[in-house]
């Protein structure tokens, strides 16, 4: 029997289901990144301000999350949380895991951005009698965030590429759908290749978009200074 390497019919059959699944993948990406942005900022603030014990605790948590595999973290959240009486569906668990994991990475980016704001800015605000919160919100953050937007954007792409891991807790994103299609027909070539193509296209588009945002920010920042 001649082995058919690529079957266009099979690919065409797989395409609508994969297109449907890509919505779940994009949802998980955007929600996960939203969690990561918020958690990351909290981690960064916790690591830079507050009492020494809190700083060390947050620093330890961030290093721990960054040094261990996302896959195990997903399993941990999915299987261990119910033991503490907290049962979440697969999708929220996946979003939480992605958000916490990339929050730890984003916190380092925020930290670099915050550290780059000159100390004189804080001192000037004290001289103007602004409260610490007002200073942080109106003076420090607006200067700290724009320069690190491209670095944050890179983590958006990285997070997107890790969403296939959610297939292990049966979230019906692209990879899980491709696996189901493959196991039904015993042909994995088309579904898995199509998933790869989808990721490649999205990565290339978002890389181009990040470059544009970067240029736009540079121009804007350049004018202001």
């Amino acid at each position, binding site marked *: 029997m001649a082995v058919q390497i690529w079957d266009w019919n099979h690919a065409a059959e797989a395409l609508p289901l994969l297109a449907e699944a890509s919505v779940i993948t994009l949802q998980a990406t955007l929600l996960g990144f939203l969690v990561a942005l918020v958690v990351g900022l909290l981690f960064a603030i916790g690591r830079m301000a507050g009492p020494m014990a809190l700083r060390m605790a947050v620093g330890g948590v961030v290093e721990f999350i960054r*040094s261990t595999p996302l896959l195990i973290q997903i399993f941990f959240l999915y*299987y261990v949380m119910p033991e503490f009486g907290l049962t979440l569906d697969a999708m929220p668990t996946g979003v939480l895991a992605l958000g916490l994991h990339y929050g730890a990475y984003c916190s380092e980016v925020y930290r670099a951005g915050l550290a780059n704001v000159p100390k004189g800015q804080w001192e000037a605000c004290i001289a103007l009698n602004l409260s610490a919160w007002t200073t942080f919100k109106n003076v420090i953050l607006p200067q700290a965030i724009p320069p690190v937007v491209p670095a944050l954007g890179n983590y958006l792409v990285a997070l997107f590429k890790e969403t296939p891991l959610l297939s292990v807790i049966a979230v019906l994103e692209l990879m899980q759908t491709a696996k189901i299609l493959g196991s039904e027909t015993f042909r994995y070539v088309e579904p898995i290749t199509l998933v790869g193509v989808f990721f490649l296209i999205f990565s290339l588009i978002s890389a181009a978009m990040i470059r544009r945002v970067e240029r736009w920010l540079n121009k804007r920042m350049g004018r202001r200074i």
Partner: protein
Amino acid sequence: MRDFLPELLRGLVITLQVTAGGAVVAVIAALVAALARLYASAPWRWLATVYVELFRGTSALVQLFWLFFVLPHFGLTLEPMVVGIAALGLNVGAYGAEVVRGAIGSVGKGQWEAATALNLTRMQALRRIVLPQAFVAMLPPWGNLFIELLKATSLVSLITLSDLAFKAQQINQNTLRTAEVFSTVLLMYLGLSVLITLAMRALEARAARGLRRGRVT
């Protein structure tokens, strides 16, 4: 914990094998791809660029599954271990290629010019002058990549390799001592990450010292 620890340690051995094998593949792939992109003729340059963009642009899990499920269709059935090492090594190697390229670029242009003045060939200049200096610059990012590789090895559990992640799931299903099992495994990965960091720091200190003395190693 004593009853499942031996099983986990067997998983640890597989994890270490995949990490070590993947690291070797990654370093070789990165060097070849970076040098091809910098110095080779057009077709090789394009091929290297396609490799880097393809492996950086898609997901590690997709690459792993692709090699595992698709290669047999071409009559090429490889051991899961080989597939795991190849897929993860090529994935990390694509990121490493950019690290190598950046490090070579960071070596001052004057170094090339001085080598030309001394009548060294391009190959000699690259091997004796430029690469040793680039080596020191690329060590810290390689440390990060090796940790990424270690974490990515957990994916091989999904192509039936009984590594740490695989054992964790298995023991969890058999004993239902969920919190205990997964916490132990997370700590094991943390320990390995710390070991990689320490080893790379020692290597950096050594390489920097060697460079000051005028030789690397």
